[in-house]
């Protein structure tokens, strides 16, 4: 068998395995089964690492990015259609996807450019509130989503000056303070619903009501969440492409240079401010669009969704995945969103267990589950 054929088979196999895993993971409810599945996956991963398979696989993957991307999308579609009439799994999948988009935004900010942002949930929230306010006004809803992003970017610009002037922990405090301020403001101020929150009207695209089930034939009915999942998937794909293209371009290089050594970057003509502003704004934009769609899907938002702890969840996804790593973000988002939900069976003990699991993962993979690779501008091209 030729190497390239082998590579392709490996990828297809992996995608199939991934889809199967996801379907099982989402479908099962029993505590023992969940536990067994997690242990099984863990053993599989450790074993393949010990056998040196992981390296080989990752080489195969990096040689065939296109196939990898396509088969991942295919696997995702399989999972989605598998659950086509199960509302809750679809809702969870869509949530994961939207978290991926928001976390890509954060990744752009501190994975690439090193601009820390502990107010991710606030910018996500700006998107949500934009959708809530504009939702009933008859604004085309795709536009509402875009405006959610734009609003997040605009609100973010309040912070531009302190963000540009500060670094490291000092910058962290700027965003922490903003996150707390944002939530308190929403709670105290009644114009946006106050602490009670606001209902959000659902998505309606060219007369297609996103909030009713889709009747395919007499017997087949798709959950209305299918609409959102598909839209969220498209959003993820576009975000993925954007992130990739930025990373593999001079812009990505400038971002990295700004993160790694501002002084040297300045001495080589890199305009620190320009790139920081771009990445901060773009990052907030992504968080905002994710928020807007999320609000429409959920139908209801309240300030307590955008607390500091929610921002920390976004940050932990980025760190757990590995800074700047998009695949890592996807994996980590799945883990962070689905795990606590899967642990519902153990009720009040689940956060304890969840936190313990996170600590263990980080102790064994300090760089994140899938650390970012060196930049390769053109896949497969090595000069």
């Amino acid at each position: 068998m030729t190497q390239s054929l082998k590579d392709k088979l490996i990828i297809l196999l992996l995608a199939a395995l991934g889809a199967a895993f996801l379907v099982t993971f989402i479908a099962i409810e029993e505590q023992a089964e969940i536990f067994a599945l997690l242990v099984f996956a863990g053993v599989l991963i450790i074993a393949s690492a010990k056998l040196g398979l992981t390296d080989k696989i990752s080489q195969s993957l990096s040689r065939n990015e296109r196939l990898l991307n396509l088969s991942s999308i295919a696997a995702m579609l399989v999972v989605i259609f598998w659950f086509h009439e199960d509302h809750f799994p679809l809702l969870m999948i869509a949530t994961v996807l939207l978290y991926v988009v928001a976390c890509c935004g954060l990744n752009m900010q501190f994975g690439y450019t090193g601009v820390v942002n502990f107010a991710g949930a606030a910018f996500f929230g700006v998107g949500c509130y934009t959708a809530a306010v504009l939702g009933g006004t008859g604004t085309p809803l795709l536009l509402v989503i875009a405006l959610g992003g734009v609003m997040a970017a605009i609100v973010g610009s309040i912070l531009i000056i302190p963000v540009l002037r500060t670094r490291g922990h000092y910058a962290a405090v700027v965003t922490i303070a903003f996150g707390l301020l944002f939530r308190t403001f929403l709670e105290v101020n009644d114009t946006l619903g106050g602490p009670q929150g606001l209902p959000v009207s659902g998505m309606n695209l060219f007369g297609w009501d996103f909030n009713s089930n889709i009747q395919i034939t007499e017997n087949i009915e798709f959950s209305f969440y299918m609409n959102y999942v598909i839209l969220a998937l498209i959003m993820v794909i576009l975000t993925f492409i954007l992130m990739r293209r930025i990373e593999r371009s001079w812009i990505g290089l400038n971002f990295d240079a700004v993160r790694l050594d501002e002084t040297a970057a300045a001495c080589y003509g890199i305009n620190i401010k320009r790139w920081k502003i771009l990445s901060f704004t773009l990052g907030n934009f992504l968080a905002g669009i994710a928020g807007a769609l999320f609000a429409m899907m959920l139908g209801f938002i309240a300030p307590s969704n955008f607390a500091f702890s929610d921002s920390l969840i976004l940050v932990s996804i980025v760190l757990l995945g590995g800074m700047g790593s998009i695949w890592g973000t996807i994996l980590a988002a799945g883990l962070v969103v689905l795990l606590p939900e899967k642990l519902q069976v153990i009720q009040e003990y689940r956060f304890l267990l969840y936190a313990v699991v996170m600590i263990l993962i980080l102790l064994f993979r300090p760089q994140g589950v899938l650390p970012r690779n060196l930049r390769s501008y053109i896949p497969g091209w090595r000069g």
Partner: protein
Amino acid sequence: MEQQQETVLAFKGLTRRFGGVVALNEFDMELTNGQIVGLIGPNGSGKTTSFNVLTGIYEANGGSIEFLGQDITSWPAQKVYEAGVARTFQRSRLCLELSIFDNIMIGAHKRLNHGFMFNVFKRKALQQQIKENYDEARKLLTIFDPELADKMFEPVGSLRMIDRRRIEICRALISHPRLLLLDEPSAGMTHEETRELMDDILEVREMIDGLSIILVEHEMGMIERVTDKCIVLNFGQKICEGAYREVASNKLVQEAYLGGE
């Protein structure tokens, strides 16, 4: 040739203080097209500071800097680079997590198209530009070390110190600057390695039209071999200027810097 005589850089009364320390004191200097000037002086005499003030990292407390007829005294670092000044750092400042190619491309900043549309949507054109620059970087790196040129996509962090220095110099040269500032490029190298490095730099100079160099070095062999003129600093003040032989025989210089025989 007239162009040869054109003044590239001129310091006039350049002064910089840190608290009580006067790092540069009324420093005057001139550099003409294609010249290699050695900037020498005891430790802490202000050599690195003069680079930092010139490249806009520190502000001058007094005096002026003229580059190609423009007053660039208070320009920010980015603008100074755009005007054609590139430098290396006394302590290597490469991005260790990035590949060799990435690091060199940081130096090529002004030749690259940084537009959002271009980078995100015009992938074909961008990839074309990447490949062109790759070839160029490779050519340059080959002059210094052909072996390194084969490792373009390896992280700089895995390389030896000496290779990092070479890459840093390539990063400075890739933009075809008019003025190159080298701060102790040979530190930590053996005589042999130092000589090779200097030969390489001279070779590159031939390629780049009208490249002038200011070289800070404590390795007198190197200074003697490559410089057209030397300037000696002590306590931020110029104490002597001239060809190396002249300077080296100056009493003051011997006392303060070389140490009498």
